[in-house]
């Protein structure tokens, strides 16, 4: 397809990209914006490694066009840090070994960020259900569940201390 100008809002910044309208959001992020945190894992919607937020909702950037996202706010793993330092959940993943090879981690973090925004105190079953659209072949998931619980506890303590 002939290239067209596509306006994309990514991590709070506006970009004008001259891209083919048939370009996938994942490719636009990785190739045109050099935001290589989002990963291509499977290309058939089964692994979740490419998960980004579109207007705050987790979606698979490998099965949508960049051009479909004009006018929407996209958040990638590069946009989730808080005030220049790692978000609590990113730090907890490091502390608890939630990431091993790390390839799936950005997708997981995007999923978990949304879970905790919707449900600040999820049960283990809710965590498992929320993570069911992301695959990891290293950790066996338990370290991730521990990391998420630790992040939830740290958040609760932080809130208690602030009161």
């Amino acid at each position, binding site marked *: *397809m002939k290239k*067209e100008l596509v306006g994309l809002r990514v991590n709070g910044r506006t970009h004008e990209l001259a891209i083919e*309208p*048939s370009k*996938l959001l994942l490719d636009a992020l990785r190739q045109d914006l050099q935001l290589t945190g989002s990963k291509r894992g499977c*290309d*058939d*919607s*089964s692994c*979740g490694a490419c*998960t980004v937020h579109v207007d705050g*909702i*987790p*979606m*698979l950037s*490998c*099965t*949508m*066009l960049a*051009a*479909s996202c*004009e*006018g929407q706010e996209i958040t990638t793993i590069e946009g989730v840090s808080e005030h220049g330092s790692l978000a609590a959940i990113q730090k907890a993943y490091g502390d608890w070994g939630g990431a091993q090879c790390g390839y799936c981690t950005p997708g997981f973090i995007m*999923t978990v960020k949304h879970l905790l925004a919707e449900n600040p105190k999820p049960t283990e079953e809710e965590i498992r*259900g*929320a993570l*069911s*659209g*992301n695959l990891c072949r290293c950790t066996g998931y338990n370290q991730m569940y521990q990391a998420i619980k630790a992040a939830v506890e740290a958040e609760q303590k932080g809130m208690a201390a602030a009161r």
Partner: protein
Amino acid sequence: MYFRPDTLDHAVQVLASSGGQILAGGTDFFPSLGDRPVTGTVVDISGLGEIRGVITEPKYIKIGGLTTWTEIIQTPLPPCFDGLKAAAREIGSIQIQNRATVAGNLCNASPAADSVPALLTLDAEVELASQVGIRRLPIADFIVGNRKTLRQPGEILSHVFVPRAIENAASTFLKLGARRYLVISIAMAAAVIQRSSTGHITDARVCVGSCSAVARRLRELELKLIGAPARAELGLLATAHDLGDISPINDVRATAAYRRDAALTLVQRALDACARGS
């Protein structure tokens, strides 16, 4: 060529003049391409806000074609929608439910489409919009075969209408897959059961999916259920004979015999669940 119309009127005009494939949520569109790039004309209707969301009308609940499955799950709806909501939770993964649309699941018309058995038990209708106007037909007529519908190339599935006559009936949906999440169904069953104040069944709809090219209502079983007391062991009324002319296939996911057996178990459990819930 790529078009991203922002009104339904514009979208049907573009379709009429340029033809091309309709792109909505894209969760079937892109995986079906495999490694091939998108070619030809694409009419991206994902920006048509006017056909998204759920509206309650006097006689129907009207669901916009671009409503996502997550929106179906999150919208407060009467009990007859519990089955459709349960089906929505089984569609792909959460990320897919966040993007995939009601219209997409119907227009792709996979024999394993999770929403179809529930919508068939609701006697839902589809509305198709084109440059010449709109037409409505029952989903039971709309889906005619494996990935075949009566949608014409210039038509967009704009709304789904669910009659409110049985909105307070109990409903459920059960799916059997090889694992808990992110799985294509081996067999599925949906049921809607309405009972009178005396606890007897006044209306029953039962449907089996993934066991024939198009999900099938079990009309003989439905007739047999009417008048029966809606109690916990209701499922025992369903027998292998009631599966009628479903025609399961042998494939990578299961054998035909296994599917038939699983379908009966799912129907029985669905009836039990409705009887408990009604």
